[in-house]
């Protein structure tokens, strides 16, 4: 299937929804694609039960009212610049190869969680913190489950609130950082329900579970699934029998598409100017890939990117102040949740670091580069392509990310083999070897 549009927004989270709405309202033929079953991204993805925050409802309604086409269940696996301000995007829609032509791109691919290995982290029922939230939204039942939440960042409190509301019995919410005040403040900033933020601000316990600073999970134990976790709470080590562990150490921006296009990076995030324009002409970027700063920032950046992609950058002026103010909050977040050294030493030499290929920490040599680690042990060679072990090994070994190659997500052979356009010019050379050997 081949389609074309003026502005293609990749990612339907808050940034993508804002970008698509503004671009479509400005008159551009706009399309937004997202892997999920419906738009919303990580925080606005509709819950099967319960309702959305009002900002989410407003923006989803605004998107629906706009002329933008929404294409859910669509995974972008490759993209390339075919001519200046002309892009060919290869996607898979429920497994069907799809080619989309576009004049401008808005990359709004969000973030994933950072995981750091510890003994037992590969056991079933050890989830990401955002991972548990995503599973809950997609229908996983946590009622009656004994849950431990341990990690860092502003995600802990809102996820604790959602799980608790869903009937889970929280045993402890362990935050490795010691900066309790900042944690609570940031949680409020991150759309934690106001009551929860309030609760957290005024006392140390909520939902019957302690919210405990200077605390982290040391190891998880079990057989065919998780049975218990060993948690360090302050100076004490406790063993807690439980059904689920939610763990994660902040967010890692999804910058693969930008890197595939050769966009200039600034450290681990995509470099953008005041119009959210990347170094590649016609490519804009908004939300987490430009720096993890939360949902309000994503909305503001998305609007700027959408307007600029539609050729109406001048209309974006009032939004720019919000963008820069929010970016400062993002940097504050990083400082508040800096990892304590103990977290880096949890993995033992027989702890698996690359889950796809079962590579253990002890197989890796500190003297190697990431590429050597990969070639010699297969670490990062599996189907997640280093999305999980890459950020972990960056923390543990100081290895920097490997190059990005298409497909950015596993894709069927026929998705990559379908001709990019009709009358594929290279077709003729396809059979230049008919003569018998």
């Amino acid at each position, binding site marked *: 299937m081949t389609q074309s549009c003026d502005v293609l927004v990749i990612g339907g989270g808050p940034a993508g929804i804002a970008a698509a709405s503004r671009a479509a309202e400005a008159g551009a033929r706009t399309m937004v694609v997202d892997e999920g079953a419906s738009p919303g991204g990580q925080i606005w993805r509709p819950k099967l039960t319960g309702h959305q925050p009002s900002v989410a409802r407003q923006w989803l309604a605004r998107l629906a009212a706009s002329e933008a086409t929404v294409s859910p269940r669509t995974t972008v696996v490759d993209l390339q610049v075919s001519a200046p301000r002309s892009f060919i995007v290869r996607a898979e829609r429920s497994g069907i190869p799809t080619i989309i032509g576009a004049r401008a791109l808005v990359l709004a691919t969000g973030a994933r969680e950072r995981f750091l290995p510890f003994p037992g982290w590969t056991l079933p029922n050890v989830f990401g913190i955002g991972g548990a939230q995503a599973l809950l939204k997609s229908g996983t039942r946590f009622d009656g489950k004994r849950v431990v939440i341990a990690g860092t960042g502003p995600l802990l409190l809102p996820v604790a609130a959602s799980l608790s509301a869903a009937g889970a019995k929280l045993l402890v919410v362990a935050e490795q950082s010691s900066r309790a005040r900042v944690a609570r403040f940031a949680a409020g900033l991150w759309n934690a329900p106001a009551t929860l933020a309030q609760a957290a601000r005024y006392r140390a316990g909520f939902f019957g579970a302690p919210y405990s600073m200077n605390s982290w999970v040391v190891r998880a134990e079990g057989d065919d699934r998780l049975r218990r976790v060993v948690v360090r709470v302050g100076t004490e080590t406790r063993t807690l029998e439980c059904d689920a562990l939610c763990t994660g150490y902040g967010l890692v921006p999804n910058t693969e598409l930008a890197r595939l296009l050769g966009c200039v990076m600034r450290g681990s995030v995509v470099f953008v100017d005041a119009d959210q324009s990347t170094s590649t002409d016609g490519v804009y970027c908004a939300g987490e890939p430009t720096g993890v700063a939360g949902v309000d920032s994503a909305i503001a950046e998305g609007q700027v990117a959408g307007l600029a992609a539609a050729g109406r950058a001048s209309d974006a002026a009032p939004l720019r102040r919000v963008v820069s103010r929010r970016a400062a909050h993002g940097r504050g977040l990083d400082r508040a949740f800096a990892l304590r050294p103990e977290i880096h030493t949890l993995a033992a030499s027989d702890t698996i670091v690359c889950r796809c290929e079962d590579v253990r920490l002890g197989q890796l040599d500190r003297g190697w580069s990431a590429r050597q680690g990969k070639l010699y042990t297969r670490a990062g060679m599996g189907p997640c392509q280093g999305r999980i072990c890459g950020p972990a090994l960056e923390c543990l070994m100081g290895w920097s990310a490997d190059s990005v190659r298409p497909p950015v997500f596993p894709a069927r052979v026929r998705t990559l083999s379908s001709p990019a356009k009709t009358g594929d010019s290279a077709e003729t050379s396809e059979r230049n070897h008919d003569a*018998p050997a």
Partner: protein
Amino acid sequence: MTSARRADAIVIGAGIVGAACAAALARDGFQVTVLDRAFPSAGTTSVGMGHIVAMDDSPEQLALSAYAQRLWHDLAPELDPRSELDHCGTLWVAEDDAQFAAVRAKRDVYAAAGIASEILDARALADAEPNLRPGLAGALYVTGDMVVYPPGATLRLLDIARANGARVRSGEEAVEILPNGVRCVHETYHAEVVINAAGPLAARLTPGLPIVPRKGHLAITDRYLGFVRHQLVELGYLTSAHVMTNESVAFNVQPRATGQVLIGSSRELVEWEASLNRDILAQMLRRAEAFMPALGELSVIRTWTGFRPATPDKLPLIGPWDAVPGLWIASGHEGLGITTSLSTARLLVDQIVGRAPAIDPTPYWPARVHSASAA
């Protein structure tokens, strides 16, 4: 079984060719130092397919690759799990009766070179590889061909070299080859024997070597154990590999020990442009799907490109380089260097120590390019 102490030898390049040379020299008593500007298996060796194959593009190529096949069988017991050795054999697939007719002749050519093979008719081929499309004419099954994981085999060869006293230095770039020596950025090494095994970069150190990078694309799938059982190559492959001017693709699919399917292959002459050419990739995959329609549904997890060190006459450059005292060349192996690394190393060491080589070494002498360019 290290022999008497011999002279010093420096091997430039820790790809599979350099590693094989280092292992052979060290076993023969040389004091070997391997220098690599990056690290072992940083170059073409890390991007190749790892098919150990007797290839009959020319009698000289067949002689070198058939010899190599025997040496890989001899080495097999010494390889470790990292090498992922798989005795899967090759099926040269004939699309139609005309190609199938050529299979008989190919079998005889192989037999004369001491390579065992069997003819499979259409039924037998379908039984051997149920995922091939129906209607193919048959195949030649070369039973002794194998598949390895090239970086793993390279590490193993370097371990063998080290066990025989060799040193391996990563991050040491050769800047200039001197008479009986090599100048690196910080240090100059002296040795009676210097081997240029810098793969596609060999000509930067030895100007005059006619080596050009010939780009190839590969794609690898998730794990589908048993989907493909042998290395499958279309009979048209040799033509595709032989024609130097065009870009070409051929059906060339490999079962990995991991259950993954490695899909090749393409050839282009585009200098050092490493980015993925989506049109070529798509053509290559379509060619593979034309032979194995079910392949279309498998999930690809990564694609990449690599540069074969190619020579105009499609034969590697193995032997002395008279212009520089002590210098020997081991490069230009194009798409066959994983296979012929072992025979290259043996030919070279036999000539260095003055032993009679197992096969005629003269067709591979780099001197042939001198005479060719002088003419």
